[in-house]
């Protein structure tokens, strides 16, 4: 029922959720845009890996930065062609979100078209592949064979999270990012170059999500829908953090991952729920959070409470 497999899965999936969800929270904090292109970062990050491995680049040390750069470039491009002009015109958050929806659709099918073309060039099936560096040996721990990728992923994740932490807490760029996140108007008045800070944030977030997508694909699989398949979980994770707290986003990653793996295997064993119903757990989690502890402040919500207040008359 709950064996080492579930625990290991919880750990690595949790870590990857964290790497993907943290930038979602961060980019929302800084830009107040719910960015659907986040989905594309994941897919594109994964496929940068796939293509590089196909081209014979066999080192994660090269593939991961490439993935990061690609995601970052797209994120910054989006900012300059779409979000920045729209914001200058005073578009409201809903319009910005719809713009990101348009971009999402566009990039999604750019990937499809590219793969369609790539299939003809590489003569392999690109629509579902597992990007793997062959140079990493497997490790055997207590009778369980763990792939070298497991440790590589944990290492990469650790490095990324460490760098993110140091960047945000110790550097002047990080302080500027946090200042813009807390109060954009005040930050601008006090001389922080908001435009530049926002672009840096986008680059950081796009890159991180792309690396997260690559790591995910290394473990699971890369398909053109890999990002779409993760959106619900990632969003639920970010909502646990109230779209505001990076710490709680990190904790949320393990809550959702734990629910998906440990709770799912329990449900499977006890009630016989098919494993393909896994997303329903995240969905219920999302609804539950919205009902019980809605991110009212950050999500731009209504000061409306469902609870019934009964007061006595005097």
């Amino acid at each position, binding site marked *: 029922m709950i064996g080492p497999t579930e625990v290991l899965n919880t750990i690595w999936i949790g870590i990857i959720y964290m790497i993907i969800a943290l930038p979602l929270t961060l980019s929302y904090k800084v830009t107040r845009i*719910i960015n659907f292109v986040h989905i594309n970062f994941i897919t594109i990050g994964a496929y940068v890996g796939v293509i590089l491995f196909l081209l014979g680049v066999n080192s994660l040390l090269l593939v991961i930065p490439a993935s990061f750069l690609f995601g970052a470039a797209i994120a910054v491009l989006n900012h300059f062609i*779409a979000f920045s*002009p*729209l914001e200058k*015109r005073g*578009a409201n*958050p*809903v*319009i910005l*979100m*719809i*713009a990101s*929806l*348009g*971009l*999402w*659709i*566009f*990039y*999604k*099918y*750019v990937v*499809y*078209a590219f793969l*369609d*073309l790539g299939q*003809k060039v590489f003569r392999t099936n690109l629509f579902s592949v597992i990007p793997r560096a062959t140079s990493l040996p497997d490790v055997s721990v207590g009778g369980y064979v763990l792939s070298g990728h497991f440790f590589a992923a944990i290492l990469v994740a650790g490095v990324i999270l460490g760098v993110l932490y140091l960047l945000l807490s110790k550097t002047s760029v990080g302080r500027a990012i946090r200042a813009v996140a807390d109060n954009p108007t005040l930050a601008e008045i006090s001389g922080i170059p908001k435009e530049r800070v926002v672009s840096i944030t986008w680059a950081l977030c796009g890159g991180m999500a792309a690396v997260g997508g690559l790591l995910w694909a290394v473990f699971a699989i890369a398909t053109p829908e890999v990002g*779409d398949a993760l*959106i*619900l979980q990632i*969003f639920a994770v970010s*909502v646990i953090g109230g779209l505001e707290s990076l710490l709680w986003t990190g904790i949320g990653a393990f809550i959702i991952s734990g629910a998906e793996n440990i709770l799912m295997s329990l449900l499977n064993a006890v009630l016989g729920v*098919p494993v*393909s*119903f896994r*997303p*329903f757990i*995240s*969905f219920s989690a*999302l*609804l539950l959070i*919205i*009902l019980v502890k*809605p*991110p*009212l402040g*950050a*999500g*731009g*919500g*209504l*000061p*409306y409470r*469902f609870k019934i207040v009964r007061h006595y008359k005097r």
Partner: protein
Amino acid sequence: MLGFDVIGFLISWLTLFGTYAILSMSLNLEIGFTGMADFGKVAFYGIGAYLAATITAFTFLFVNGIKCPLHSVEAIVALKECASKNPALNVSIFVLCILITFIITGAIGYLISYPTLRVGPAFLGITVLSFGELLRIFMRHFEPTGGTKGLAGIPHPLAWIPDPRLRDGIYAAIVLVVMLLTYLLSEKIANSPFGRLMRTVRDDEIATLCLGKHVPRIKAAVFFLASGLAGIAGVLLAYYLGSVNPDMFVPAVTFNVWAMVIFGGMGNNKGALIGSAIITFVDRISFVVNLLFPQAIISPDYIRWMIVGLLILITLLFKPQGLMPETPIKTLALTAVAEESGGEENA
């Protein structure tokens, strides 16, 4: 291309246009008038189609005393046989399905949206988007409605008309009539005090709440109506195609509708009509063109979707009002004021 069937093309386009126009007007009620981003339109479209398919197939088998699973081959054969026996049955089930679907899909929409209505606009979007996808996953595993294969052989409401061309033509007309009714309904709602509330919610929901209006209830009511209408569009689709399966209802359908509304003009029902007319027309044409180039390097489908995405973005960037900008509410109030100030002058 010599044998290009112009009338057949027109009929299929008009049917598709009518169905999508209902969807876009329902989305327009949400995003255009009330400012609710519904990224899961397809869920209610799908529920409507499935309801119609299930109810119709079940009733026909039941009335004719045939006992077999709805999705079995025997059922499809039996349905084909008894489809044209009793015109009254066909028509009355059609009407009944529309009514039932409106209420059930509306109620589902109300329930699913209510918890998300007080949090920011993204939550409704994500929740409904996921809801649609989960529903699709569920239907793929749900054997009583045929799993991935879905249901087929759904008796057409006009199956008793022998000439298929005439039948499709009349059906297209029915779809257009339903579309027209939807249009009138939306216009009535939009130009009433309730429509005014919808716009105030869009402009500033917090201020609306502070003016004593029950904003979550207003939004949920709009969502009920819009989901119900999407359900009706689903019913029309199910009868037109005669079959349903889970993979007809992918999120891409929602995007299509979004492109229509944004391109046509948010907050304007005529815009939604024009948007859906243009996009469904291009769709039909490209369907014909696709048949001409089966060996394209990149599937024209992908190109088409890229264009849909770009269309949304470019419209927002360069012509945010779309083809038809929003018009002011036609209200009675102004006449009252005109009388008032007119009376002043006389006195």
